[in-house]
């Protein structure tokens, strides 16, 4: 077990393009850290630098107090699960899991004991004699994890381990990985582009964009107090809506009517003219279904619904709106960067599943203005971010985590 510290890590490829640019990140002992971002953000490169499969151009990589920049992968004592599992097809499941031990020349009984333990944890007993070719995707995934946990490694590294599984299995394996990590309490770095995995698994999440760290925080803080447009747009599904707005005093004029800001936020946007308002889909509601008591906390507006999607437990409505040319361009640029190609400016609105709002009709919506964020369209910065509230969320998550690990250790001990 060890902590991982990265200090000003830079990775430049032959053409001088920095895939990872000045990344400093501390991962505490036993922490579950997620590296997340759209494709090409440098998250996999960063992981491969930790494990030693990629050279570090400059900066220090410190694992468990020792600088490992010049150490070969095998001297770093880390274990890794690859995206395509990289099982050895010529070896049985047993020998696949035993492989790291065989390389250490461990005696046979110890190998048997450790492999059996790992197989117990992952329920692989009846498959030990089979070849990887005869296993299903989920079983292969478990073998890959078995190979990772059989050795007393200092940290686990996962490189998009679930992206080759179908949606149902992915959900199961996700909880499996979470349980395993809690149980073993080993420092884990997990790379994914899937924000559900990022939100559910991580103690802390590190959002990367073009090789630069955007924000490192607990999932809750990322969701409620994003640092900029990019993080706000990346975290959350369906994504946050960004509406162009003009500032007039303490209120914002948006295509969906006027939004009143509280004192703190009004002060933050002072002096700006055109801003972007970030509103999560669930801050909207069908106006006819809003509690009378809640109604004064937001504003009501009418809009024409383009499409509705009813999912049983929830319902989404798509509301197109007009935006100035340059804002439209900027939003398109952002959505392209986030790997989603949004073609039109439209707001995605979450309404109650029982709502009778139908496509193509005018309808009344209610907007909860308490939690909206205001972004500077030029820099993308979040003008209304409450850093203290965010830090508090992360501190609470850390505390929960300590308790969980304590409980797991007591149970195991």
């Amino acid at each position, binding site marked *: 077990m060890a902590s991982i510290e990265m200090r000003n890590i830079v990775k430049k490829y032959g053409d001088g393009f920095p895939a990872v640019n000045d990344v400093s990140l501390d991962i505490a002992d036993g922490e579950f850290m997620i590296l997340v971002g759209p494709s090409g953000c440098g998250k996999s490169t960063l992981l491969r630098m930790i494990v030693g499969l990629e050279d570090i151009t400059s900066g220090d990589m410190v694992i468990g107090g020792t600088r490992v920049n010049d150490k070969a992968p095998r001297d770093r004592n880390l274990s890794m699960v690859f995206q395509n599992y990289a099982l050895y097809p010529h070896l049985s499941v047993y020998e696949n899991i035993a*492989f790291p031990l065989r390389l250490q020349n461990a005696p046979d009984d110890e190998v048997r004991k450790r492999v059996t333990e790992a197989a117990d944890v992952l329920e692989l007993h009846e498959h030990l004699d089979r070849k990887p070719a005869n296993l299903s995707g989920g079983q292969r995934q478990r073998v890959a994890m078995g190979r990772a946990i059989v050795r007393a490694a200092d940290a686990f590294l996962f490189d998009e381990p679930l992206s080759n599984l179908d949606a149902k299995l992915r959900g199961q394996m996700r909880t499996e990985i979470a349980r395993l990590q809690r149980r073993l309490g080993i420092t884990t770095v997990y790379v994914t582009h899937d924000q559900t995995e990022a939100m559910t698994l991580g103690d802390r999440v590190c959002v990367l964009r073009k090789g630069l760290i955007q924000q490192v925080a607990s999932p809750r803080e990322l969701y409620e107090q994003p640092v900029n447009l990019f993080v706000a747009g990346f975290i959350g599904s369906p994504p946050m809506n960004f509406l162009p707005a003009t500032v007039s005093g303490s209120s914002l004029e948006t295509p969906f009517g006027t939004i009143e800001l509280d004192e703190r936020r009004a002060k933050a946007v002072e002096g700006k003219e055109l801003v972007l308002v970030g509103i999560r889909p669930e801050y909207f509601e069908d106006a006819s279904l809003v509690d009378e008591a809640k109604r004064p906390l937001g504003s009501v507006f009418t809009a024409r619904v383009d499409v509705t999607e009813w999912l049983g437990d929830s319902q989404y409505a798509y509301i197109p709106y007009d935006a100035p040319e340059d804002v439209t361009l900027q939003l398109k640029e952002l959505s392209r960067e986030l790997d989603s190609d949004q073609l039109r400016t439209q707001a995605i609105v979450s309404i109650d599943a029982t709502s009778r709002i139908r496509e193509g009709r005018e309808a009344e919506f209610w907007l909860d203005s308490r939690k909206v964020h205001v972004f500077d369209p030029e820099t993308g910065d979040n003008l209304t971010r409450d850093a203290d509230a965010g830090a508090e969320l992360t501190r609470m998550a850390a505390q929960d985590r300590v308790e969980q690990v304590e409980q797991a250790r007591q149970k195991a001990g």
Partner: protein
Amino acid sequence: MSTRERNWWIVAGIGIILYALFPIAWIVSLSFKAPADIANGQFLPTVFTWENYSLILTGDASELFLPALLNSFGICLIATFLSCLLAMFAAYAIARLDFPGKKIILSTALAVAIFPVISIVTPLFNLWRQIGLYDTWPGLIIPYLSLTLPISIWTMSAFFREIPWEMEQAAQVDGATTWQAFRKVIVPLAAPGVFTTAIIAFFLAWNDFVYGISLTSTGAARPVPAALGLFSGASQFEDPTGAIAAAAVVVTIPVIILVLFFQRRIVAGLTNGAVKG
């Protein structure tokens, strides 16, 4: 596939098999004919005889044929082994490592492969006599490597490229040195490729005639194809057709055995299940 379509495939398949096997069948039948029968223009011998085989294995021609058979086996096996070993390292480097001149190596290998053998045989003959390699095993093994190495490097680098990079990286993370990763992961995975390459290389060497006839003069190193050319009839006026046919059958047998033996290994898709499925 419809029945009609399948019938067509069967008919076409039989046609191709007949076309390919007819000359071989003719040689086999020829090898069982008595000298008087050979020019009779019939497919089957009128009298079935082992005469030709006894001639080359125990009779007059055996002095020429048996040492040649030994030479051919020895020289071809050594040349195949060496070229597979060398090609394995070369192909690994070409498939995995980034180094300047990679393209040049590959194109040089190709150039060597298509270079006409006949044009270097004469200078080689002179050179070999000067340095004492003429009519020796190494004197044939070295030119055979020039035949077998290029094709071995090409086929093996294709096989190595198929092996996912992650295999090796996973091994390194698991604690293997580069050499251990190569030996314990890459080589077993590349085995079908190595066998395929070995067979191709062996055939190339086994079938060579030009080097064999030019760079040897006695039974010390003369391979079978060259020896066949030197068979003589019972008298000056008689062609050794029967003996040559019998010898041809004998030298074809190892080739057939090789293919049948290694066929399964070649076909076995060993990398199945290595990665996502």
